[in-house]
């Protein structure tokens, strides 16, 4: 093992050369450990320790009045239990993520099924156009939709007006603001679902479909009994990706730009609430407690997915 590679070095000093060889041998024998070094540092320094620190902060009072975190036990959590803004933000986040992701899946799957037939001319270019939105900078997405939604000169209301309909105020109204930001997420991320579903459909074996056709199955039957079960793993993966991303980015960047949580706090998701609490009102202790609650929620959702077997057989 040690002789696998022992490059002779030109150094005159024997012990030096031995040391080099020893180092090389150690590297050769344990190279996988060295390869892992970055990720171990990453996990420790950028993930586990910060997460532990977050738990500690969530048990502390740390705001403009206190210079360093002071331990206060579960006070922040007790406060959260009675904080209507927190519960409203939580509910909004769940409504946002689940309705957006559901619409994206249904729409993306429908487009994928339609595209997944051979010989439609110009299909390549259409596919390119359809997936454009997901590559656009989320901030720019927020900005371009603010123009489209503008109640006085936005394209949407101008179009509605030409049809004789008085459009709502969209982002400006308490009734439509949440719906408006959800629609923007649908616009940006349906293409992702479409891509995933297309990739999934193209990886399906052809035999079951031919068998079904020979047996005279209807299109709906084929879809229900063959396509859907075989697509289940990729559907779950796609859902998981979108839900995770929904809790991370989608419920922050575009909303922050379009409404900053307003009007009132109608579009204030957990992320926005935590950001405002921590970085605008400088109450880092309470913000940490909010984030811990979001984390627990997401862990629960993740467990549900893991139990459904998304990663089954893939890890080993």
């Amino acid at each position, binding site marked *: 093992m040690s002789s696998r*590679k022992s490059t002779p070095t030109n150094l005159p000093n024997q012990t030096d050369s031995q040391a080099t060889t020893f180092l090389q041998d150690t*590297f*050769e024998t344990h*190279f*996988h450990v060295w*390869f*892992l070094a*970055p*990720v171990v540092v*990453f*996990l420790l320094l*950028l*993930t586990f320790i*910060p*997460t532990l*620190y*977050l738990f500690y*902060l969530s048990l502390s009072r740390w705001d403009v009045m206190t210079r360093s975190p002071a331990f206060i036990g579960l006070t922040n959590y007790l406060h959260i239990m009675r904080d209507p803004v927190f519960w409203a933000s939580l509910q909004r986040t769940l409504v946002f993520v689940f309705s957006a992701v559901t619409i994206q899946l249904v729409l993306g799957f429908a*487009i994928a099924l*339609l*595209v997944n037939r051979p010989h*439609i001319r110009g*299909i390549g270019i*259409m596919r*390119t*156009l*359809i997936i454009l*939105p997901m*590559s*656009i*900078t989320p*901030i720019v997405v927020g*900005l*371009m939709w603010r*123009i*489209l939604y503008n109640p006085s*000169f936005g*394209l949407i209301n*101008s179009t509605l007006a030409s049809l004789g309909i008085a459009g709502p105020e969209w982002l400006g109204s308490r009734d439509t603001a949440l719906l408006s930001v959800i629609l923007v997420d649908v*616009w940006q991320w349906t293409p992702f679902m479409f891509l*995933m579903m297309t*990739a*999934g459909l193209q990886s399906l074996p052809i035999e079951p479909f031919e068998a079904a056709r020979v047996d005279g199955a209807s299109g709906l039957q084929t879809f229900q009994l063959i396509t859907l079960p075989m697509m289940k793993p*990729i559907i779950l*993966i*796609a859902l998981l990706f979108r839900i*995770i991303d929904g*809790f991370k*980015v989608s419920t*922050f*960047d575009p909303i922050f730009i379009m409404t900053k949580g307003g009007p009132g706090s109608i579009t204030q998701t957990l992320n926005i609430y935590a950001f405002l609490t*921590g970085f605008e009102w400088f109450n*880092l202790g309470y913000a*940490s407690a909010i*984030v811990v609650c979001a*984390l627990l929620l*997401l862990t629960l959702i993740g467990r549900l997915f893991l139990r459904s077997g998304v*990663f089954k057989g*893939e*890890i080993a």
Partner: protein
Amino acid sequence: MASRYGSKHRRYLRGQILGRIFLFAMSIVFLLPILWMFTTSIKDSSQVMAYPPIWLPRPPKWENYRIAVNAIPFVLYLRNTVTICFFTIIGTLLSSTLVAYSLAKIPWPGRNVLLLLILSTMMLPFPVTMIPLFVTFGRLGWVNTFKPLIVPSFLGNAFYIFLLRQFFMTIPGELSDAARIDGASELGIFRRVILPLSKPVLAVVALFQFLGSWNDFLGPLIYLQSNDKYTLAIGLQMYRTTNYVEWELLMAASTLVVIPILVLFFFAQRTFIEGIAITGIKG
């Protein structure tokens, strides 16, 4: 028999036509906001507010682009953004490939546990580490520098590790074995056998990392505090004066921010789609 063939053919044709109409409608829906951003960017301010809406202003006011670039330190922000993108791409490629290779190709006890740990960090919402890291980077004196945005990429990224691992798994072990018999070192095998075979997936990682850094908003928003450090995503906010938004300039700048992405996207579309497919199918 003939009629049956006919009805089947008719159904096929109907499917084709309906499919095409639906697709066409969908591509318009997905494209229109982007087009609208562009046409707004070449209007003058009265045309922005005009009713009925003006689709293509004549003559186009290309001057908006010059004004927009000069209204904020656009070139400086572009340079900042490119700097961050460049180093994060290097960092990610260096670290994530090593880690992924170890996780994919070398059997050692506990590697599945580590993989699960890494995957589970993908589940962590960004804000979880946002506050503690902000405090830590603050103590290190890194706030208002690019370091908090660049250094983490040199420690790997769960998503890219996962992506690369999935790809490395598909490279047959015989290749590395042959190189090993020929006396190549492990690092040599990694560099001369594995990496050259992985060019497509490395392109995917570089592309995604570019998009990630280019589009990042929350990171720069928290860490970059002085005007001269801003990235483009943050700089876009500066077109908003106290009670008035210069929409045509904002849209011109937005278009400029999006153009590199669109160009990359058209040229690297296959890479992009492949990346998504790798995560999806093999995930």
